[in-house]
């Protein structure tokens, strides 16, 4: 089964609110929306971010713009102004999601 990086299929931007990070995920080709819907589940994203995210991950579908929004709780070591991390604003979470490998059937 061929395996590719999510980076090849989609772009993503992340942002912070309190100790929560959200990631918008946008397939380059609208046709891939369905594929991402099957492959990039909330469970997989939670597993992917193990060690960085302590809380739950929820996925929202945004079909009108063919996108997904992932909300990651307990993701920022306490939140931007109390985090010890270099990426205290969670700016790199989008890029980190794109490191995920996707199996293409």
């Amino acid at each position, binding site marked *: 089964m061929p395996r590719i990086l999510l980076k090849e299929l989609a772009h993503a*931007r992340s942002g912070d609110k309190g100790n929560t990070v959200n990631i918008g995920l946008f397939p380059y080709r609208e046709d891939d929306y369905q594929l991402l819907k099957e492959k990039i589940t909330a469970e997989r994203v939670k597993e992917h971010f193990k060690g960085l995210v302590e809380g739950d991950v929820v996925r929202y579908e945004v079909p009108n713009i063919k*996108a997904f929004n992932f909300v990651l709780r307990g993701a920022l070591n*306490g939140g931007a102004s109390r985090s010890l991390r270099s990426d205290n604003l969670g700016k790199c979470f989008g890029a980190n999601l794109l490191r995920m490998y996707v199996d293409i059937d």
Partner: protein
Amino acid sequence: MKSVRIGAGQGFWGDSPFPALDVVRAGNVQYLACDALAELTLAILQKARQNDPAKGYVEDMFFNLLLRPCREKGIKILTNAGGINPRGAGRMVYELAQNMGLKGLKIAVITGDDIMPRLGELRALGVDLSDMENGEDISTIEDRILFANVYLGAKPMVDALEMGADVVVTGRTSDPAQFLAPMVFELGWRWDDWDRLAAGILLGHLMECSAQSTGGNFSGDWWNIPGMERIGYPVTEVYENGDAVLTKPEGTGGRVDLRTVKEQMLYEVHDPTAYITPDVIADFTAPLLEQAGPDQVRITGMRGKPRPDKLKVSIGYSDGWLGEAMIRYSWPDAMKKARKTEEIIRKQFTALGLHFEEILTEYIGYNSLSGPLAFGDGEDLNEVGLRIAVRTRNKQDAARMPRLLPPLALNGPPTASGAGGMPRPRELIGLWSALVPREEVEKQVKVELMEV
């Protein structure tokens, strides 16, 4: 159909003022809205106010550069640069306008978002101020609170425009509300016309982070974004029925297309069917986005639901200190050297009796931005920086920690470099969100007008 053109001037405190000048010069706008307050900006302003009670607002060059050209073109400015001292910011704008000889300029100041003095009163009324994120009781932080500001909606800003204000200065407002206010004022939208209010909020959201909808911080084919050295900030033309076109000033860099706009559309959004603001709950799964021309995205069909009964208060509290230090190592074995130094430092912490609540080590060049998700083992890197960050209740310990690193240039693994400089400890500020009854806040909101 009646319409209004609004431009974005600022995405955060520290943003460049030059794109705002391009919007004023070539954006053909009637209004310029500037968002100076990120969630953590109040934490920074609070420190300024601690040192000098007259401060606590955003002091930058925006007004020095923008007041005159905006006055000449009749462009009205809305800004939340008031931070936690809107009256101080209003005074600053007044004095600046006076020095520039801008006679007749009307400046409105909106206050009432600061509820810190009323927290006790609200609790006595039975308002539950538990944290929305973790449900903890406010008593756990009550003696450490630094600020408490409610996100206000667009209504007081519309009142200010009705009073004839040329410049509207606020403290904490919902970021998109500054963009919604001129739409409501110019297009006569009703306060229960949820779909139109939601359209205004969506547009405001697309504009509040300046170039993030015109090609900045774009994770797609960012290398193809033209003219990033003079990127254009978003400008929108909104029609009476809530339909709009998002674009940018002629002659500027950047790109407005479905990809760049979509990335901003979900930025800092949680449930996209319910983007909650003081004025309306917007449904981001409703609108249709289409490319209407070069650097033009048309947005139609936005939907909204009735506004919430409660408003969100953002409370900042003191939560210890951060001490940090960095040291770099070169090939060969850069990573091994950095790891060895981490081991030495941790042993020294123990030997010196330094106890920290948390110790975070990051390897810059390897995992400082990706943590456990980093690829590879970092063993063949040309250079690695070890960053050590500690959390402590005690400022002295936070200051002491970085002093352990420079001696290792001579006492530790070879090739240590860049350990000069001693970063000062930084106070950590926790953010706490709770909901308060709208009427309790709104009865205290004031709009004051000054004329130069």
